[in-house]
């Protein structure tokens, strides 16, 4: 069954190497920047999971990211100790996505129409949160604050010990743990029947239905799982920035994550992670100079990637690697190509 490679087998060697790198990285790099890149990576991976494997493209993934951030901030303001807020920041987006997802998938909404609905959900949240500057908008002790957002909430602490806040290097390790945890969880899910059914849905939804699988339920479930991960990323982002503002719901946030996934490569988990980290780093680098307009560079980069690397960076590289190997052993090469049929269709 090696053909299920894309969903199944796990390359432990690579995994351990990455783990070692991530653990040791703070010795040479700025943990604060690295934390942000890991948070973005987690956010991208959450979209990569549902888009790359189940073929569900959301134009509004920022909704769950932002909902996670806001949920954490509001709950932390009211509760103080961070364990419950953290859990809520995962559960609330998951529940929200389950509702929106069920509404869409049981209503047979897909493709570009799903794109519009997810986009609209994000716009509603953005518009609403931007309009909450007045005194009346408060949840318990937390004022929503409109455009200015919510600053000054307690950040993550060691569970049970509100006095021990996680800041700096410890925060970085929390991000590492979150990303690895979600990665392993995704791998596990994909290696099970559920993962194979998702790939089946991506390949041919009608057939999956005819095989007797409950397609809307599977889609809703993966949508909610993905939203939970995005919510966790949003929660970490809130802790990293120490402020949440409506910009977490912005069109820009929502578009950027799509690009990260795409540039990194659809149909892999590692691709979106690398895409987010690489493009995030480029963005940060561009922010340190005032010579070239950043929009210009990002725009050119994006056009180039779409025209030049149809399948995103990682699959393209893998494909190139394979074609070299295939010259030596033709049979193995053919296997690799599977990496979910790389055509991007909504």
């Amino acid at each position, binding site marked *: 069954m090696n053909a299920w490679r894309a969903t199944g087998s796990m390359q432990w060697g690579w995994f351990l190497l990455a783990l070692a790198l991530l653990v040791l990285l*703070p010795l040479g790099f700025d*943990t*604060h*920047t690295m934390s942000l890149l890991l948070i973005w990576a987690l956010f991208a991976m959450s979209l990569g999971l549902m888009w790359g494997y189940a073929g569900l493209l959301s134009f509004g993934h920022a909704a769950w990211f932002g909902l996670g951030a806001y949920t954490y901030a509001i709950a932390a303001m009211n509760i103080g100790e961070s364990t419950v807020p953290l859990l809520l920041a995962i559960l609330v987006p998951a529940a929200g996505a389950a509702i929106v997802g069920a509404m869409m998938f049981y209503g047979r909404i897909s493709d570009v129409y799903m794109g519009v609905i997810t986009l609209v959900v994000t716009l509603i949240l953005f518009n609403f949160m931007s309009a909450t*500057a007045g005194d009346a908008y408060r949840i318990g002790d937390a004022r929503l604050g409109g455009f200015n957002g919510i600053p000054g909430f307690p950040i993550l602490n060691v569970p049970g010990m509100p006095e021990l806040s996680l*800041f700096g*290097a410890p925060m970085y390790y929390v991000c590492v743990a979150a990303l690895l945890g979600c990665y392993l969880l995704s791998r596990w899910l994909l290696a099970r029947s559920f993962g194979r059914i998702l790939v089946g849905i991506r390949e041919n939804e009608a057939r999956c239905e005819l095989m007797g699988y409950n397609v809307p339920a599977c889609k809703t479930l993966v949508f909610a799982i993905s939203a939970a991960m995005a919510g966790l990323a949003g929660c970490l982002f809130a802790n990293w920035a120490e*402020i949440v503002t409506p910009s977490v719901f912005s069109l820009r946030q929502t578009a950027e994550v799509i690009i990260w996934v795409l540039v990194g490569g659809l149909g892999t988990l590692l691709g979106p992670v690398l895409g987010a980290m690489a493009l995030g780093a480029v963005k940060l680098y561009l922010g340190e100079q*005032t010579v070239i307009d950043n929009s210009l560079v990002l725009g050119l980069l994006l056009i180039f990637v779409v025209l030049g690397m149809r399948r995103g960076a990682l699959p393209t590289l893998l494909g190139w690697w394979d074609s070299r190997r295939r010259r030596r052993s033709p049979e193995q090469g053919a296997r690799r190509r599977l990496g979910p049929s790389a055509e991007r269709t909504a």
Partner: protein
Amino acid sequence: MTVSRRDFVAAVGATAVAGVLPTRGFAQSGPIKLGSILDNSGNLDIYGKPMVLATQLAVEELNAAGGLLGRKIQLIQYDSQSDIAFYTKFAQQLARQDKVHVVHGGITSASREAIRPTFTRSNTLYFYNVLYEGGVCDRNTVCTGTTPAQANEPLVEVGMKRWGPKVYIIAADYNYGQITAKWLAHYVEQRKGTVAKTDFFPLSIADFGSTIAKIQQERPDFVISALVGGAHMSFYRQWAASGMNKRIPLASTTFGVGNEHLALSPAEGDGILIVGNYSQEAPTAANQAFLGAFGKRFGDTKIVHEIAVSQYQGIKLWAECVKKAGSLNRSAMLKAIESGPRIEAPSGAVVLEAKTHHCALDIYVMEVRGQKLTIKDTYKQRPPSDTAQYCDLIKNPKENRQFEVKI
């Protein structure tokens, strides 16, 4: 409150990974580092771009005059791309890696609140040089822009004297607009006027048709606008397009800060009443020199607006404090800041108040005429009395919060 325990954990973390976190300490020689974070791209760049240029100009001028304390000034400038995440990120970078001596930056209040805690925690002196809603009370922070008490009271006074007691307020829907609207209402009622209605608009709203109709329904004597940003420009356009500019006079606390007057034709813009800290026609020698230098360096002076000048003045004020302190040592600098330094700046005298770390400023009553802000009247040295009601950093040096003004 949370600061001390965070430090504790940071210290624990640092020991855990053996000296990973940078330890703080200034180089005693080499250039003095001045950090700046501003939106040089993205949808707030209309404010940020001129500020970036003004920052460069101020630093170049200081260096041309031989630097400070015999050292050159090195400008480290980051573009936050109108994205809050970048503010946090670059603030950390400035404080931890670049180890700058001072930061001048932030545009929106949200961006200020995103970076202020970082600088407070790392003891990096922070200057916020933008007009804002007031109330920041933090010994590590200096605010050089106007607050509502400085600019709004004259606006209400002049407006009511000219046109009458019934006012309709429209404001941007975020804390600047919300708090400013409260102050405006307070000053109106103090003068026995009435506020017909107050409407708030998120920064993304660009269609004001229904609002203009509602204003006409109320028939106010004049309208005060505290609208902000590119989308809100549409209000002035639609106002003029419907011919309202001939029927109900308009006053504004923010008009001109984003160079709105350049976007309206004279026929549309003329007559709008503005009160603020700066006009390009300010009759000071420093202003002539500033505009001359800006034009020589960057070509066009048209884009110079109030907060670009505020940024320039903020840097000059900081330089004055450094000179007074004679050292970059923190306690010496705080002492200098709290000794009432004064500079003659493009907008007039700028005097830093020890109690609030805010500035007394000259306030101009202006009218738009032919795409220029012509000065009608000047209030000399108005103090930031709103913030002063609550904030006394001499008495409570540990204070660190933003007071919400209650009226």
